């Protein structure tokens, strides 16, 4: 049962990553804020890659199938015999298929990014400080009241510049 949320601010990425690893070793579940996309933080926190890629694949397949459906389907529905050429002329249709694959895959990527990142978000994120979008890395950890002094010591030992705590 967690009673306290502790937020520590670090001046660089390495210290932040090191602290995340130590907190995970202590069987805690830290979260992080960073001003840049950090591969090291991601690897320290997650074992699986983002599920966005599955949505992009699905969007791309959907787009490609839509491209075939639009071109072949409407060509047969509005049968236009141009100089005896085949009604369903695949080589030129592949251009439409390709463009729709890209379009739907890209849109699926953006929408799934919003969905998994929980954007747009209207409420303030607990523990967030304006420094975390600029020049500081943040580690957030929830812990029991009885453990807070031990965690604080751990954070200080890891190089935290500033530590704040708030009751949950």
């Amino acid at each position, binding site marked *: 049962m967690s009673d306290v949320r502790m937020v520590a601010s670090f001046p660089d990425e*390495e210290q932040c990553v090191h602290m995340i690893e130590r907190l995970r070793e202590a069987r805690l579940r830290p979260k*992080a804020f960073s001003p840049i996309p950090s591969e090291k933080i991601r690897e320290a*926190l997650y074992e699986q890659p983002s599920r966005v890629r599955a949505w992009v694949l699905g969007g791309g397949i959907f787009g490609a199938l839509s491209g075939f459906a639009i071109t072949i389907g409407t060509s047969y*529905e509005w049968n*236009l015999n141009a100089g005896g050429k085949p009604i369903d002329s695949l080589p030129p249709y592949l*251009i439409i298929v390709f*463009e729709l694959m890209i379009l739907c895959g890209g*849109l699926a990527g953006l929408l799934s*990014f919003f969905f998994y990142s929980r954007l747009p*978000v209207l409420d303030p994120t607990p523990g967030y400080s304006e420094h975390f979008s600029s020049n500081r890395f943040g580690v957030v950890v929830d812990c029991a009241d009885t453990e807070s002094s031990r965690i604080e010591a751990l954070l200080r030992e890891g190089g935290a510049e500033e530590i704040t705590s708030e009751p949950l």
Partner: protein
Amino acid sequence: MAAAVSTTTAQAPTFADIDREVRRVLNPGGLQYWAWICFCLFFVLIAGALWTNQVYEGLGVTHLTQPTMWAVYITNFVFWVGIAHSGTLISAILYLFRTRWRTAVYRLAETMTVFAVLTAGLFPIIHLGRPWFFYWLAPYPNERSLQPDFRSPLVWDFFAISTYLTISSLFLFMGLIPDVANARDAAKGWRKTFYSIMSMGWRGTDRQWRHFSMAYLLLAGFATPLVLSVHSVVSWDFAMAQLPGWHSTIFAPYFVAGAIFSGVAMVLTLLIPIRKIMGLEDLITPWHLDNLAKVILLTSLIVSYSYICESFMVWYSQDAIELATFHQRYWGPQGYLFWMMVACNCVIPLLLFVPRIRISAVWLFIISLFVNVGMWLERFVIIEGSLATNTEPSQWRFYHPSVTEIFITVGSFAWFLMLFSLFARFLPIISMTELKEGIQWLREALRDNYRRAA
């Protein structure tokens, strides 16, 4: 290691230095800035008035007539689509290759892409006699027995350009989110509200970055083949036609190389004044200019090779009609346009073999202007010149643009520059996030500059 704190010197910028420099650009523009915007708006309004007159009077106010039914408007369309391409090259293709120098210039290039495609998209509509029917190109079921022919390159264009505009806009928007959140945290008043809406509540949490990185990587992966396909499709507008001067198998790679060539030149045309006016010399260093110049040099050589190759194939085919068209292109009444094009695109860029010129902002700015002119002329020579000297010599007739066409062309440049200038003052024109990611490269570049200066 991406260290956020170190000694603040000009040679070793920190995260805070980068924020301060980029946020400084977001300050409200002064009188000169708004005078520039009004100057651009003036030409946009003139172009709008002339276009309104064209819609009312009909296409007779242009000098479009048989056999040159495509001329300045379609030249502008191809030119602006081409300009867009380098933005995607720098933002997406070089991102996949993890190219170090792109971080300071990619946002500017990507912004240029979006506004260039927006400008390009206007011209097929401006070129229509009845522009209110432009939606007939869209493939939707209707009851007039009208169905777009998917075998037509013009329909491919519709799909390619609209997809390109959408994906480029998404890519620009996604990349902006963390930077706008950064600007939001330092802003006050209406700007804070504006940036809060734009950033959608971004906080830079590990969850957000995890999905952001994957989505951004995949969008870059999609944008890469897209950019190659779009200008190939544009080139097929011409290459699929049975017209001497157009019907050529090398058009796709030739147009793509030309697009990157003109686009990188336009990046420099925009970048150099912005760098000077906004005092961004410590973020956009001679190292960045040098690398952009090398891309121009490489693509200039590819374009020069394409001109030679195209001419060789005409000579080798010994096709009388092709030979006649190309003879007119080189030595006909408008041959001076072809030789100006060769000078601008093939000869002047050779100056970039000199390392000193590659890091000189003044020289690069001048060369980039020549390349812009040369690449516009290239499209005009191909489009108008080939139509003017078609397969029937009895129909040959050279075209000269009307006042309407000239001012609509000028208006398109004003429109593009106005949009770009507004963006540069209200949204981060340099990606703070990516500069911080590659801060050690920026430090190396600055140290190298200081060493050279010493």
